[in-house]
């Protein structure tokens, strides 16, 4: 009986981590529905980008207020996790503050966790005010209605509750240490929670112990629950920001990839020796679809991008089309891609891992051509993203499908392309007149 709490703890821990692992596998399965391979070139540069952009938060602080608040919560998240390690060991072994023998180092650690916890609480409150009270524009765009808004607030509430539980647990622990309660060895420095002592005035040791235990259990169970909430939330960025910045585009932003499938066709057309009537070999695979109408036509990196998006809306707030009232919102492109990918994933779950055709696709059911055609390809969204997401590449992939598979470009663009084909210029001027400007006064 004595080991019952340890066993219960172990069970919860295994369940929490097990369920999370199951979801990570789903995540990886869904991302692997994309085309191509993850890039593996120039690894040193990729590590550098990850260190600088994800670990170093360099693009977050471009907007100083949101950036600073985010750095606080981010540091809080990373550093307080050291404490989670101690909590897990204590939970499994039934010990109390197992790292206590570290002495001064331990005191410094606990003290910094407490200060960070307080700062995180403050930051989370300001974040909440920015979203719900100040109502900053990028947080109240049409794509943020409903679940995205609720998701954002839930994350803030959970973080707030976890931090309050953490401080309550420490405050009660500290009181118990002062009262020389057995098992509660004196350890740690509590610069914040020592001021919460008055809550416990007149309480018996057993009540304080109960509060300490309840806060301790709720805190760790809360963390495990939050871990499992990630998969269903935009908050997944806390994990995926790292691979996403690693796999981010290394080429200069102006360079759009040349489609290899097209290069093959073009070479064949330009080759005077090619036989235009050649029949492809019987076992030749069907030619690739040009561009993307659904998530399976996108690349793995584009799908990883979609899962990484935390809907901050910095892209949308700098998009010239969105700023002037057009339907296009780069953030919505990413959210739609993720939502469709999730739908495909659920379809596979239901059908023993095989995707069964549904009457849905990314184009038209989620993203409208009107959104795609409003893009000026100015790269502002790509530049603005703090975690190297590239909404522009998805827009171009989908335009490629519309133009090359469906011939569904706006009619003025068809005129422009017809001109290029016939005269080598987007306007109806003859190529032979290209030098006329020299003789014009």
């Amino acid at each position: 009986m004595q080991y019952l709490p340890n066993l219960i703890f172990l069970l919860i821990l295994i369940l929490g981590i097990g369920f999370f692992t199951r979801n990570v596998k789903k995540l990886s399965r869904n991302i692997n529905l994309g085309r191509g391979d993850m890039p593996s070139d120039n690894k040193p540069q990729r590590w550098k980008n990850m260190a600088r952009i994800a670990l170093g938060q360099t693009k977050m602080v471009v907007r100083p207020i949101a950036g600073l608040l985010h750095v606080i919560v981010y540091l809080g998240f990373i550093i307080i996790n050291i404490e989670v390690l101690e909590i897990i060991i204590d939970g499994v072994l039934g010990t109390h503050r197992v790292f206590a023998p570290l002495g001064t180092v331990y005191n410094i650690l606990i003290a910094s966790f407490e200060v960070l916890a307080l700062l995180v609480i403050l930051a989370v409150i300001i974040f909440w005010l920015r979203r719900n009270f100040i109502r900053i524009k990028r947080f109240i765009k049409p794509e943020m209605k409903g679940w995205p808004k609720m998701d954002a607030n839930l994350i803030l509430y959970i973080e707030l509750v976890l931090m309050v539980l953490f401080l309550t647990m420490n405050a009660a622990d500290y009181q118990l240490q002062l009262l020389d309660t057995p098992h509660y060895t004196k350890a740690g420095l509590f610069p914040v929670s020592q001021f919460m002592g008055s809550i416990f005035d007149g309480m018996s040791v057993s009540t304080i112990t109960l509060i300490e235990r309840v806060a301790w259990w709720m805190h760790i169970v809360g963390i495990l629950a939050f871990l499992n909430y990630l998969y269903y939330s935009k908050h997944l960025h806390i994990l995926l920001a790292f691979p996403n910045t690693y796999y981010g585009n290394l080429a200069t932003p102006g360079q759009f990839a040349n489609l290899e499938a097209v290069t093959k066709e073009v070479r064949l057309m330009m080759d005077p020796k090619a036989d235009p009537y050649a029949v492809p070999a019987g076992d030749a695979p069907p030619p690739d679809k040009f561009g993307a109408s659904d998530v399976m036509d996108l690349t793995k990196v584009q799908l990883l991008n979609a899962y990484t998006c935390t809907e901050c809306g910095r892209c949308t707030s700098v998009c010239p089309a969105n700023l002037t009232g057009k339907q296009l919102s780069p953030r919505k492109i990413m959210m739609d891609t993720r939502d469709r990918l999730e739908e495909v994933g659920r379809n596979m779950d239901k059908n023993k891992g095989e995707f069964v055709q549904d009457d849905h696709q990314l184009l038209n059911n989620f993203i409208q051509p009107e959104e795609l055609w409003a893009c000026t390809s100015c790269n502002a969204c790509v530049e603005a993203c703090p975690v190297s997401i590239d909404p522009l590449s998805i827009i171009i992939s989908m335009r490629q499908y519309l133009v090359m598979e469906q011939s569904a470009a706006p009619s003025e663009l068809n005129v422009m392309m017809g001109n290029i084909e016939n005269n080598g210029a987007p306007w109806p001027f003859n190529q032979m007149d290209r030098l006329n400007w020299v003789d014009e006064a």
Partner: protein
Amino acid sequence: MNEELKVPTMAELFAAGKEPEVLFWVGCAGSFDDRAKRITKALVKILHKARVSFAVLGTEESCTGDPAKRAGNEFLFQMQAVTNIEVMNAYGIKSIVTACPHCFNTIKNEYPGLGGNYQVMHHTQFINKLLEDGRITMEGGRYKGKKITFHDPCYLGRANNVYEAPRKIIEKLDAHLVEMKNCRKKGLCCGAGGAQMFKEPEKGDKDVNIERTEQALETKADIIAAGCPFCNTMMTDGIKNKEKEASVKVMDIAELIANANDL
């Protein structure tokens, strides 16, 4: 164009067994658009003044394929690219200057993968280098003290990280460079990129060029300097829309230099 300003073609030079220092890629706008032709001529004058041996492809030049590629027509883009590359490789072109950031970006970044490797410069980079090397000097003070704001073309700035060359030139004009609310990395598009130049905008509250023109007018600049024929058109239209054409001019960097030197 006066008689001394010869514009040799690659074909002529090739026939004479000569090789120019640089190929001037004129581009479709520079060849056909009346406003952009003035930019082309300004650049030719600067090249002559600096005694740069250059040539154009003339009737052998064809659209780089940029608007087709951004519109999603990869086929047409690659057909154009491969054709242009064949012509340029046949002439052994090594170095290119162009006054269009879209041509610049496409030839510099998207042609190498299809077999076209050249050193490509935007004309603001090229002019800045001519100034730094002392091949041209700035004379007269036509723009002294004038307020000039520079509109960053997306395909020069964000796309290729070129922000300083055009600004250095403006400073050498003894002009007062004023920045817009959104500049450099945060520059706002003029609204023409991604093949938008060739179509009506989607439904919205406002046109992008009007938004950008408002930002430019906020600086109270006398001149909006541009480095792209399409930005030039969009900003000129914006100024007309705001009925400011009497007080604010939209000019290309090349025109500013040519005018300052009374070319």
